[in-house]
């Protein structure tokens, strides 16, 4: 799994947040557009793009986009 590719896929889940705002160190819970619905989209993305299953609880425990990458990568 490639971190930059993951960041791109993660940024794709947002409609009004510019991709340039999202880097490996971004604390995504702090983004204005982040919501439980975005969380569900990330779960769907992990499944369809990477074939991995993650939960809402695990996403809540992540702080940065890189944490999220490590979570998906560890599955």
């Amino acid at each position, binding site marked *: 799994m490639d971190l930059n590719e993951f960041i791109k896929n993660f940024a794709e889940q947002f409609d009004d947040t510019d991709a340039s705002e999202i880097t490996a160190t971004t604390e995504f819970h702090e983004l204005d557009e982040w919501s439980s619905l975005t969380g569900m*989209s990330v779960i769907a993305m992990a499944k*369809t793009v990477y074939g991995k299953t993650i939960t809402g609880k695990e996403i809540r425990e992540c702080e940065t986009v890189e944490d999220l990458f490590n979570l998906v990568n560890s599955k």
Partner: protein
Amino acid sequence: MGFNPFSLEGKTILVTGASSGIGRGVAVACSNMGAKVIINGRNVSKLQETLSLMDTEDCSMIPGDLTNTKSLDTLVASLPNLDGIVHCAGIGQRIPCKDLQIENVDCVMDVNFKAPVMLQAELLRQKKISKAASIVFIASIASWSPSMGNAVYSASKGAIVSYANCLALELAPRKIRVNCISPAMVWTDLILRDGIDEEQLKEDENKYPLKRYGKPEDIANLAVYMLSDASAWMTGSNVKLSGGVS
């Protein structure tokens, strides 16, 4: 004991999805009320667990996957005549509308809509449903009460309610009754899936006027009423059972 219009003595009842959750609760309640119960599900060891909670002398299991329409006719052929059917088999899903793939739609509609519709059709073709029988579908308040990520599940339940209305009309000449139960959240494996976890659910549970989610027994007791002769004038109904939420 004497007068008890809610008794299921002498009735033979098929319960699908009886390996866990609401289906298991319904199967056990029907057995407790004196019915001969036949349980169906995909997982044999979980069905055995359900059977262990029932009066096993009168109860039996017919394992099988109802979405496999090719084996449906043999499964139905092995059934006795039925006085009641409770369609409980179902699955949940939480995927936002924009992320839906065709497989996501198929997997929910296959289990929650197509399987009960085709089972019902086969039961009728093989004349397995006795006169004045009662048919119950477990729907959901989700069919009119939206929640995030629940679109296909909600639609599948709305579809089954609409289907049941027509079935009720078609079977009324033989005094066969068809009703739906629409529960709010009930503590089962189904609600603990795809991005929702227990912590979030407990927070939501507190917003219920009666301060709790449902238990399978809560749903089972209404199913017993719908299966019994006490509800002889009830057909084409969809009853909300929700601890007070709309």
